[in-house]
C-alpha cells in the first residue's frame, strides 16, 4: 500500500499546477489552429505538442524535462540552446529560395533593410520597459519576423527567454495576414496601391551562381556575427543554383529541413514549462513582439514612399511590407492587398525581392546585435 501511495504522489495528477494546465491548453490551441486554420502548421503543431509534453511535471530525481541535464529532451534542446538548429534550417531555406526576383530589381533590396527598423525600435521599447540590453536585443529580433534568427540570437543573448521569444515570433508570423493589411492600408493611398511594377528581367544562370558567394562575403565581412546564418543560407542556395548538386539541394530543402523543423519546434515547445514561461516578462515579450511586427511593416512601407520622392519609376509602397522576412507569407499579403485594389495587378513576384532581402537583413541584424552585446 505504501508503495502505491508513494507512486501516486509521483504521478502528474498529484504534482500538476494550474500553470501547467494552462500551458497544456495553450498547446492544444496551437494544435487546433494548425489543423483547422492552417496557421504555420509545420511549426505550430510541433510547438503545440511540445508544450503539452513539456508541461507534464517532472519527478524529482528523474531526468525528464528539457531543463534536466542528461534527459532525452535536454539533448534535443541542445540544438536550440546552442543555436545549432537555426543555421541548419537556413541551409534548407537557401536551397528553396529563388533570388531571381531580387536579382532583377536591386533597388527593392533596400526595402528589406528599412523593415529592420522594427528590430531596433523594439529594442528601445524593451529597454524602456526595464529589460537588460541583451534581453532587449533578443526581444527586438522578433521584429525580423524570422523564427530561426530569433531563436539563434536568443540562444546567444538571453537563453532564458528562448521559449517566449520563439513562441511570440512564430505566432506573429502566423498572424502576418491579420497584422499587416490594416497598417499597409493606413499608410498608403488608393492611387499608390494601384502602382504597377515593370516586369522582372530574365536573370542568367551565372548571376544566380555568383550572387550567393558575393552576398555571403559582403554580409559576413560587414557583420561577422551573421556568418553562421547567412553562410548556411547562401550555401544552400549555391547547392540549388550550381546545377551540379541537385541531390544535395533536394535533400536540404526536403528531408533535412523537415527533420530539423520537427526537432526545433518540438524542443521549443517542450521548453515552455509553466514555471519558466508564465511570467510577466513573457506577456511583455508578446506585447513588444506585436509592436515590432507593426513597426517593421510601417518602416518598409514608409521607406518605399520615401524612395518614390526621388525616383521616376515609382515603387508600389505595399512592397515595403514584404521587407519583414516571414517568407513567403508577407509577400502573399502584398499580393492579396494589391489584388484587392486592382485584380490585374500582380505584385507577388516583385514582393519576393524585399521578402528575401528581409531574410538577409534580419540575419545581418542578428549578427550586429550579437557583436555589439557580446561580453
Amino acid at each position, binding site marked *: 500500500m505504501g508503495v502505491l501511495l508513494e507512486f501516486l504522489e509521483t504521478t502528474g495528477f498529484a504534482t500538476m499546477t494550474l500553470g501547467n494546465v494552462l500551458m497544456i491548453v495553450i498547446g492544444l490551441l496551437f494544435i487546433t489552429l494548425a489543423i483547422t486554420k492552417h496557421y504555420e502548421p509545420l511549426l505550430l503543431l510541433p510547438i503545440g505538442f511540445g508544450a503539452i509534453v513539456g508541461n507534464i511535471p517532472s519527478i524529482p530525481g528523474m531526468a525528464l524535462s528539457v531543463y534536466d541535464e542528461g534527459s532525452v529532451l535536454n539533448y534535443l534542446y541542445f540544438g536550440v540552446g546552442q543555436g545549432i538548429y537555426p543555421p541548419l534550417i537556413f541551409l534548407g531555406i537557401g536551397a528553396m529560395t529563388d533570388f531571381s526576383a*531580387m*536579382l532583377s530589381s*536591386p*533597388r527593392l*533590396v*533596400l526595402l*528589406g*533593410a*528599412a523593415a*529592420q*527598423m522594427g*528590430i*531596433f*525600435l523594439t*529594442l*528601445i521599447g524593451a*529597454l*524602456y*520597459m*526595464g*529589460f*537588460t*540590453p541583451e*534581453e*532587449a*536585443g533578443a526581444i527586438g529580433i522578433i521584429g525580423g519576423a524570422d523564427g530561426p534568427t530569433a531563436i539563434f540570437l536568443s540562444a546567444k543573448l538571453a537563453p532564458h527567454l528562448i521559449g517566449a521569444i520563439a513562441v511570440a515570433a512564430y505566432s506573429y508570423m502566423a498572424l502576418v495576414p491579420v497584422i499587416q493589411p490594416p497598417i499597409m492600408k493606413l499608410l498608403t493611398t488608393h492611387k499608390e496601391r494601384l502602382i504597377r511594377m515593370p516586369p522582372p528581367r530574365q536573370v*542568367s*544562370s*551565372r*548571376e544566380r551562381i*555568383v*550572387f550567393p558567394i*558575393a*552576398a555571403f562575403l*559582403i*554580409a559576413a565581412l*560587414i*557583420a561577422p556575427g551573421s556568418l553562421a546564418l547567412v553562410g548556411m543560407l547562401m550555401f544552400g542556395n549555391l547547392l540549388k543554383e550550381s546545377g551540379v548538386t541537385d541531390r544535395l539541394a533536394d535533400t536540404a530543402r526536403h528531408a533535412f529541413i523537415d527533420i530539423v523543423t520537427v526537432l526545433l519546434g518540438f524542443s521549443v515547445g517542450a521548453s515552455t514549462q509553466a514555471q519558466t514561461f508564465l511570467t*510577466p*516578462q513573457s506577456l511583455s515579450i508578446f506585447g513588444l513582439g506585436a509592436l515590432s511586427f507593426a513597426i517593421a511593416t510601417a518602416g518598409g512601407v514608409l521607406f518605399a514612399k520615401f524612395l518614390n520622392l526621388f525616383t521616376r519609376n515609382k515603387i508600389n509602397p505595399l512592397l515595403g511590407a514584404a521587407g519583414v522576412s516571414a517568407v513567403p507569407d508577407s509577400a502573399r499579403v502584398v499580393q492579396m492587398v494589391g489584388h484587392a485594389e486592382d485584380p490585374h495587378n500582380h505584385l507577388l513576384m516583385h514582393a519576393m525581392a524585399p521578402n528575401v*532581402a528581409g531574410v*538577409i*537583413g534580419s540575419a*545581418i*541584424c542578428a549578427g*550586429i*546585435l550579437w557583436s*555589439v552585446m557580446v561580453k
Partner: protein
Amino acid sequence: MVDPQTGLQNITAGQGLAITAVGMTIVFAALSMISLFIARLPGLLRLVAVVFPEAVAATPRPKVETDELPAIAAAAAAAYHVTRGAGVERA
C-alpha cells in the same frame, strides 16, 4: 531578469539609441552594397563572357515527319472542338 532600472534612464544606460543608429546604418550599408553589386553584376558578367563565353545548352529541334502532319492537325482540331464544346455546355 527585469532590470530594476526602467524608462529613458535604461535606454541611455543600455545605449539603445546608439545601437539603433549604428545597427540601422550597418544593415543599410550591407544591403546597399549587395544591391549595388546586383545592379553591376550583369555588366561584370558581360565582361567575363568575353573571355569565358557562357555555354548555351543546345536543344535539338524536334523532328516532325511530314506524313504525320495531317494526323497531328486532325488531333489538334478534335481537341479544340471537344474543349470548345465542353465550354459551351458549362456556360
